[in-house]
């Protein structure tokens, strides 16, 4: 009973926040509602027993993808007056397209019926009850579908390399730090033995000493304290 109540609560918030994603005027609010929608989807997965997927959904989509979304959207310079300018002109076309899609959706749902063996095919998050959800996913992903899994990884790798190649450019004239050269530099920096209690400026060790420069003269012993 509690699980059913929780399901309806999370599902209601999920649909509500999904509506707010497309209807809220401020894009940053849209992204924040999208994050709320992700959260509720994760909660629904938890109720279904798919704990691993729920956590991965939060880590990947909320923790990384949505952060980058927000990062970009926050930096957009949006003029809300201009955004609303063409609303009346485009409203009839948009409404017509929406109506067509809605009618299609009604037709599809009207002819919908469950297959006779749907209940048996329903996804079981913990098959047999002896393994955890994580192990069940691992077994399916890394034995039955290993090729498809690796291919998906390869496609992502190609996309990543493509993005890097498209954005990486060596601009002439930019100064870059060569850490290796810095760390391995010798000769120009050295340690100098300083007599204790002597002022630094008089001995001229603020600059690196020249190779044949005379040794700093030790201050008299009674010359201590401040200047």
């Amino acid at each position, binding site marked *: 009973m509690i699980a059913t109540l929780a399901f309806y609560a999370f599902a209601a918030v999920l649909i509500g926040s999904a509506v707010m994603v497309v209807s809220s005027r401020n894009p940053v609010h849209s992204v924040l509602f999208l994050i709320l929608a992700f959260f509720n989807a994760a909660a629904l997965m938890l109720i279904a027993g798919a704990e691993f997927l729920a956590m991965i959904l939060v880590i990947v989509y909320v*923790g990384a993808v949505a952060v980058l979304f927000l990062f970009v959207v926050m930096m957009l310079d949006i003029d809300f007056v201009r955004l609303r300018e063409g609303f009346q002109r485009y409203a009839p076309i948009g409404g017509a397209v929406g109506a067509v899609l809605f009618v299609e959706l009604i037709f599809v749902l009207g002819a919908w019926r469950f297959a006779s063996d749907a209940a048996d095919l329903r996804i079981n998050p913990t098959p047999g009850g002896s393994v955890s959800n994580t192990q069940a996913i691992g077994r399916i992903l890394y034995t039955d579908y290993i090729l498809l899994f690796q291919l998906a990884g390869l496609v992502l790798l190609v996309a990543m390399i493509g993005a890097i190649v498209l954005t990486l450019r060596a601009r002439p004239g930019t100064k870059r730090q060569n850490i290796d050269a810095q760390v391995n530099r010798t000769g120009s920096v050295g340690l100098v033995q300083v007599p204790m209690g002597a002022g630094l400026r008089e001995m001229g060790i603020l600059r690196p000493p020249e190779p044949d420069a005379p040794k700093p003269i030790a201050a008299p012993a009674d010359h201590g304290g401040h200047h």
Partner: protein
Amino acid sequence: MSDFIATPFGTLVITVAQALALLVPLLLAVAYLTYGERKVLAAMQMRKGPNVVGPFGLGQPFADAIKMLMKETIIPSGASRALFMMAPMITFGLAMIAWAVIPVNDGWAIADINVGILYLFAISSLGVYGVIIAGWASNSKYAFLGALRSAAQMVSYEVSIGFVIVTVLLCVGSLNLTAIVRAQEQVWFFIPLFPMFIIFFISALAETNRAPFDLPEGESELVAGFFVEYSSLSFGLFFLGEYANMILMSALTTILFLGGWYPPLAIVPFTWVPGPVWFILKICLCLFTFVWVRATFPRYRYDQLMRLGWKIFLPFSLFWLVLTAFVLKLAGWLPA
């Protein structure tokens, strides 16, 4: 009594009692962590630190808390009010709910869930939202710059934290936090996985926005960064959240690498000390190192921070992950 616990209402009451038993000491620990940090910093800089309120200045955290409560809450006129007030609550709330799965002793976790480590990783990756929302909702340039820095920084260092966690999981064979600690009964993981331990600790510094990675605050360039517009209790929540996150990350380090509640050696004088005491002592060691690092290192430059995360930690942790997998497989040590 056991009948009562079995009812839904009984479960609720017991869970609330457990949560209070964990959170009240935690909040006290947060209060005294601020005191401890100031004392340790003072000792490292040859000062005295807080020493006026109460004996040895022990009343200082409460004096600070009362001062914070008495101040006026200021909301900038250009701010997005709802989000502005939500941001500190998010930071503080996330730092608290993560503790639900931390096992202080064998079987002492409030919720001993199967995917405990993923839960912790998810919660810690959400911490960035408090910072980003605060920076954006303040409608201030400094706060916004701090938020942008924080977003890039946390996403970068999460990647290497993820690889470190996967390496530990390879050695354990479970995502459950209690199982992770139990796997360290013979040898704590910081010995075989020492480089990963170092990477994890440095990434934890970056993840909690602590020095030398405190660029989101960067008081010398961004005034106070993302919380520059906050005052009174809303500032206090950010402050508490940061320190609670430090304790959380130290607890995570203890669980992953320092053997949780196990004594260093399973011989008589050590085994007399109960497990939670060892757990707390290890957390204190980590926290001391957090403060020690703050007193020692200057703040990183931003490009150096990104270079360290992406060009050094990411390849190295990836390499070490593959190496660990090879060694475990070839030596036949893979957990079933």
